[in-house]
């Protein structure tokens, strides 16, 4: 049984990505009790799936390690993974939360030795790699996953494969009888840091993501470039596994379009500029099709640097549609550019859709009365009481701005629980 102590001076943080971790750490390091609830089996969220950060091109693993260490060392934080908020009621300083914890089938005896993974045969689509690879029925999502414990796929339960995993474990860590648990908590303030998800590229029908193998999304491209990723760090065409040497990036794939996402997703311009550096490093040429490049303030320097790269071409045009050259399986980009109004039909070996950001959770699952804007993000306004939104739960933000927003939310949440403490003397 999971034992969690919480009072109305406790802060509940929903979502353990970089924003949730930041809010939790800032509040905990200020001496507050924090419960961090994460849906995935590990913390870190989508930054764990990034190869490099813009604009410094440093690795997210660095900051992740620091944050994981801070979390591990801080007795004020309780991390609940594979956990979701089933319901939240109450008012500022006095919320009741019901947390549903899914069974991991692996207990804290796990040493992450990997014997169970070696023992089992069944494979499942790896969500961590956006389905570009498979993982075993007993798996660890990625090499730095924290908590450092394996997970068993629910579909394995009751199969002989699961028994093999149990037999292989020398530490008695596998508990196939583990059940879903429900935990009731009293908390004073709640910070939603539920993050974002990539916009479903299948909805952008003219681009044929569902029809053409060599049209992929920016998040998939990012996974490809990870040396530990599904292609071992190589940029490979899904159709024939050959290295792509001519890559097109389509900006605003789903963003700034009233047919899809009305808002600008803010990160995609910089993400694509960053990804051209991966292509250049791999000896490939890049072409960016864009409406306008939104590289704000200090990012302008990075944009200038990429513009100076002779391997990168910029075409001012939103691609109208993509057709397929059947022989080469090259997607052919069709459109008219804005600098001269020239009609083009240009084949590329690989096309990367810079997909937009949308809120990862459906607004209808949020507690009643929480203010939601027209794009589905949580609006931080006074009527939300002791509920705050950090990072991409509040807007489409890059990591830098998400962390700023998360720090601000920690302060807001601390003010709420301090008021509770003050009134209770």
């Amino acid at each position, binding site marked *: 049984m999971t034992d969690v102590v919480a009072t109305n001076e406790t802060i509940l943080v929903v979502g353990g990505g970089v924003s949730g971790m930041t809010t939790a750490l800032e509040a905990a390091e200020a001496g507050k009790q924090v419960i961090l609830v994460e849906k995935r089996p590990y913390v870190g969220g989508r930054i764990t799936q990034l190869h490099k950060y813009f604009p410094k091109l440093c690795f997210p693993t660095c900051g992740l390690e620091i944050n994981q260490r801070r979390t591990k060392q801080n007795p004020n934080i309780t991390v609940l993974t594979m956990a979701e908020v089933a319901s939240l009621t109450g008012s500022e300083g006095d919320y009741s939360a019901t947390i549903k914890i899914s069974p991991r089938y692996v207990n804290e005896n796990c040493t992450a030795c990997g014997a169970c993974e070696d023992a089992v045969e069944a494979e499942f689509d790896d969500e961590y790699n956006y389905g570009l690879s498979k993982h075993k029925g007993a798996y660890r999502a990625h090499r730095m996953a924290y908590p450092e414990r394996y997970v068993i796929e629910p579909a394995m339960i009751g199969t002989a494969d699961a028994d093999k995993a149990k037999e292989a474990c020398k530490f008695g860590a596998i508990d196939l009888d583990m059940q879903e648990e429900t935990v009731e908590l009293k908390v004073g303030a709640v910070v939603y840091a539920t993050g974002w998800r990539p916009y479903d590229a299948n909805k952008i029908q003219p681009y044929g993501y569902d029809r053409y193998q060599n049209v992929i999304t920016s998040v998939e491209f990012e996974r490809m470039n990870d040396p530990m990723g599904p292609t071992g760090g190589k940029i490979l065409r899904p159709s024939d596994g050959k290295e792509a040497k001519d890559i097109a990036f389509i900006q605003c794939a789903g963003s700034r379009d*009233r047919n899809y996402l009305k808002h600008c997703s803010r990160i995609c311009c910089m993400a694509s500029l960053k990804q051209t550096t991966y292509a250049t490093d791999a000896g490939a040429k890049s072409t960016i099709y864009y409406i306008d490049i939104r590289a704000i303030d200090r990012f302008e320097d990075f944009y200038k640097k990429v513009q100076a790269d002779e391997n990168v071409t910029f075409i001012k045009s939103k691609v*109208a549609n993509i057709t397929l050259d059947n022989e080469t399986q090259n997607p052919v980009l069709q*459109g008219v550019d*804005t600098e001269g*109004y020239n*009609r083009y039909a240009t084949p590329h070996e690989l096309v990367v859709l810079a997909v937009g950001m949308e809120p990862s959770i459906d607004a209808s699952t949020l507690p009643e009365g929480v203010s939601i804007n027209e794009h589905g993000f949580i609006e931080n306004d006074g009527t939300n009481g002791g509920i705050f939104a950090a990072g991409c739960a509040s807007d489409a933000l890059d990591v830098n701005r998400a962390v700023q927003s998360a720090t601000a939310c920690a302060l807001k949440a601390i003010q709420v629980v301090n008021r509770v403490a003050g009134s209770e003397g």
Partner: protein
Amino acid sequence: MSNLNNQMVNKYRNDFLKEVEANVEEGDWVKMCMQCGVCAGSCPMGPYWDHPPQEIFMMIRAGKREEVLSSTSMWMCTSCYNCIARCPRELPITHIMHGLAHYGKRLGIAPKNQPTLKFSQKFWDNLMTNGRVNELKLGIALYFIDGFVQGIKNALAASGIGLGMFKAKRLDPMEILGGHSVKDKSGLKAMIKKAQEIEEARISGNQ
């Protein structure tokens, strides 16, 4: 140049965008274009236009009045609505194209020998005679749009289709004599006259 055209030139001077906003159907949407190019790329007739919609919008903002209004481009629109469906900003592009074509025609500076313009005029004249389209007469008028000899050639080439339509009771040869009409022809004409008066008043109010 028509009198109305001169009046409009004097009134709006260098601000063609303002003129379009005030006088062209859905013209106030033009400024919303962000020049992404999806309309131009999505247009099935795109390769045959002198200026795709995206360029037309930029030309309007640049004050290229003569080039826009006397262009054949807007007359190439087939009303497939692909551009409206795909425009990220939901501009009613098809309607704006028709509005520009119509405004150019009203000012008397639309291209004289553009086939769509000629056909549109024939369609309108045909419709206004009886309040119903006389398909036989319209078809014949269309055959002879490029002269008598070409008309005979066109008619012969399409005779099989005509015969098939006659057999399927889709073409009545008796329509050549007057043809069917609406019940209240004078009522319809009065209605159209009133509508034209209202529009004239609106345009002259803008002068």
